């Protein structure tokens, strides 16, 4: 259903919506109402009735999408019509009120309707792009599997780090501790810290290699993580300790390489996890706006109708 709702039935619902808009504009242009154009004319009532029926039908989509049984009017068709008729409502609703806006509940109802439609347009963009991005990011996996993978990596990395050096273990434990609580919710900064930590280890291993082979030592830049609040108080000392330990070859190089591989693997997983959460959060936040706005619009519509006939 990803993109099919856009061109469902050869854009049938787009054509219907455009036709509806054109007829409304045409009627609005030729109508000669009593006083200025407003909802209080035969055209105003006509457009208002059509708009109200469309709103009720649009909101009913929330019920329809939970009915999983197949009908002649498939969910894709329903969604396609939902999108296009919802957009047409922008024209119909505006012509209904005759561009009369004031500080009253009718204008508030109109604003709610416009906000709902605009949020719906954002939703269309999201649903056209985000599912593809999610698939490209984690493939067939899911967030739970990624978390389990990261836990496994953490345990392996800690075990290898312990075998390498206590300082390396300490740093690794710290980084895991940092990411452990922060893994839910996702935090981009933690991911960056992890990557920087990986870079630190890489730089340290290069320095180690240089000292062992008597080559010119490579200057180790202070990594970002060590300047952060969560870094150990004396990062230079930590780094120096790692380098010295590695320089005396107290840890085997193979283990170090395994650790680096695990760190990189974890960083990649966290990056995927983070992006997955970002994408899913966007959809959730969108729903958090669109659904309440839709219901608020429906309620405001009922109040609008009641108040119009109240006096």
């Amino acid at each position, binding site marked *: 259903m990803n993109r099919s709702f856009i061109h469902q039935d050869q854009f049938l619902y787009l054509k219907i919506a455009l036709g509806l808009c054109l007829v409304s504009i045409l009627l609005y242009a030729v109508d000669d109402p009593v006083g200025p154009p407003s909802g209080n004319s035969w055209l105003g009532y006509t457009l208002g009735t059509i708009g109200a029926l469309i709103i009720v039908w649009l909101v009913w989509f929330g019920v329809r999408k939970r009915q999983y049984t197949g009908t002649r009017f498939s969910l894709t068709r329903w969604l396609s019509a939902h999108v296009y008729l919802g957009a047409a409502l922008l024209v119909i609703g505006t012509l209904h009120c005759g561009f*009369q806006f004031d*500080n*009253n509940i009718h204008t*508030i109802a109109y604003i709610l309707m416009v906000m709902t439609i605009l949020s719906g347009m954002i939703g269309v963009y999201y649903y056209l792009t985000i599912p593809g991005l999610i698939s490209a990011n984690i493939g067939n996996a899911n967030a739970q599997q990624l978390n389990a993978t990261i836990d496994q990596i953490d345990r392996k990395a800690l075990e290898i780090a312990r075998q390498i050096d206590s300082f390396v273990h300490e740093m690794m434990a710290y980084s895991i501790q940092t990411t452990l609580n922060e893994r839910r919710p996702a935090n981009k900064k933690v991911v960056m810290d992890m990557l920087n930590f990986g870079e630190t280890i890489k730089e340290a291993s290069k320095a180690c290699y240089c000292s062992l082979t008597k080559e010119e030592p490579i200057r180790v830049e202070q990594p970002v993580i060590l300047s952060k609040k969560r870094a150990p108080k004396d990062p230079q000392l930590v780094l120096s300790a790692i380098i010295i330990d590695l320089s005396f070859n107290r840890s085997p190089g193979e283990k170090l390489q395994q650790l680096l591989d695990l760190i990189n693997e974890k960083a990649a997983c966290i990056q995927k996890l983070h992006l997955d959460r970002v994408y899913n959060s966007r959809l959730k936040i969108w729903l*958090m706006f669109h659904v309440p706005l839709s219901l608020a619009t429906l*309620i405001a519509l009922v109040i609008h109708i009641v108040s119009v006939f109240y006096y």
Partner: protein
Amino acid sequence: MKFRIRHGNQPGQPEDPSAHLVFESDSLRIGRSPDNELVTDNPYAADYHGVIRSAGPSGGAAIESMVLSGIVVNGKSRKIAPLKPYDIVSVGHFHLRILAPDPEHDFVAEIITPQEAHEHLLAFHQGNRTIRWIKAKLHQLQVRPVAWFAVVLTLLLLFIIPLTAVYVPSLNHFLKNGSPGMRAMSATSWSIGPVSRYHIRIADECEQCHTDGAFTDVPDKACYACHEDIRHHFNLDVTETKKNEMPLCGDCHQEHLADNFLVLGDRVEQCLQCHTDITQVAPKSKLQSIPEDFSGEESLFARKHPEFVAAMVSNHEEDHPIVTRVRMDDKEHLKEHSGLVGFSHKDHLKKDGILAPDGKGGAEIMKLECWSCHKPDDQGVGMKPLKFEDHCQRCHQLTFDELAPSTELPHGKAEKIFPFLKEFYAGSPKGTRIEPPSPPDKNDRELPGRMVSRGGLDFDDPDVTLDGYTREMTQRVFEKGVCSECHQPFKPSSDVSEWRVVKPKFTEKWYPAAKFEHQAHAIYGCTGCHQVESSESPEDVNIPAQASCTECHDADNSNCLKCHTFHKDPHFNMKGTRFGPKVEAIKPWHGNSSAGQTDGVITPAPGHP
């Protein structure tokens, strides 16, 4: 120090005394190594990760990290940190929650699960606690409760509060005087559109007009509360109009459309509802019906509007003028009988001018224009009434006796002529010239004003009395003299002293049901509409007919109310006939009309179809 560490207790379950680790030592070490007091196989822990010991003389405990990266207290990495109740010490998945010391132990803590630690830590994370809590709650938030919240909020703000304000004036007053957001919740926020500027003073008082409550139209009585003297459209009794056929105020006066809009003035259809066949609603009305397809096509106004009907002085009964409505295309009856004779616009408006009486021997040419006599009134709507003394007497002097050529009769009161003459002749020698003869006019011009001769009358005859002489001269003045030059004299009895003239009565308002402003039409000039250059008779009606108006006014730029008024009937006010007590006796209208019963009702002239 005495330590007591609780472990293995399940939340909500009775405390298990055996699940306590109690010991006495200088410190409590945490790590993977078996010689620690608290040993954890947590892979995140170092062999010796941290140590808890007394904080010193001040009491309490503190924790010191044994690793360079520090130990995590309340989510923050610390080298050394004092511990207070409810702090969380974390080593990987191992979490220790500090509790308040009891009388027997200096340090009490419990080992908690990562989930418990996560919940407790929310309160200790950096940043504002409330914001952290809100963030955590937002993260857990689901769509459905948010949607319900939106529904309830919308109902509250847009329905419950405004509806309450409708019935609680104090709340409404409070909301109306608040911010724009609060005004949007007041009772007026239900207003379907702007109130017209005519009602702007009561725009915020819905109950002033909506007196009958919800879901009902504004009743007419609400309008009459202020507009109590508003007049009916026409005399209901004369036309026998069905009162239930009368439109409501709100049918024509629609509020809440725009701030400058109240009357459906541009709605021809509104008037046609009744006037297409007026007899349906007013059986005795003699108004002409308007074709149903009056509007909608170009210049239909010109082709479909009935010819204008003038309300003109058509005849006199003694000195009482009769006003009759005559169609402007009814040339046979379209004659004004004002009581004036001999007047000709054509003669007065000669292009070469007319001889003026000024100078007496130096007569000059005077060129008259329309405005020489017809002066617009102060409002620029109509014309000031003509007065003999101001507009006529300069030329038409009331001299009456050729032997007294400078003496003039009084004007305006025919009954004063006989006493005047009697007094005049009583003081004059019989048969003699009263005044010296005037010098001959240069052009030998005869001034307007017929003087009568005394031929046949002999003042020396002793049988001729002053009364008899005066009666004879009175007879001559009325019948042949200056009076009959402009007026129609008549004698209601055989008594000569009773000579009178028909009192002129000019039609002051030719189209009493119409609105017209001369000032607005001044650019077309008088003769652009009034064809007076060829008018030779005072009976000529020189008022423009429909064709003259429709040269400019058609259905596209005109409507009924452009020319017609609505609330014009002088007999009733609407309140009195519809809602108030029935008017017992209709006051007679002391207007100038007798045959035309009232405005808007045509009483055709005799013979008029």
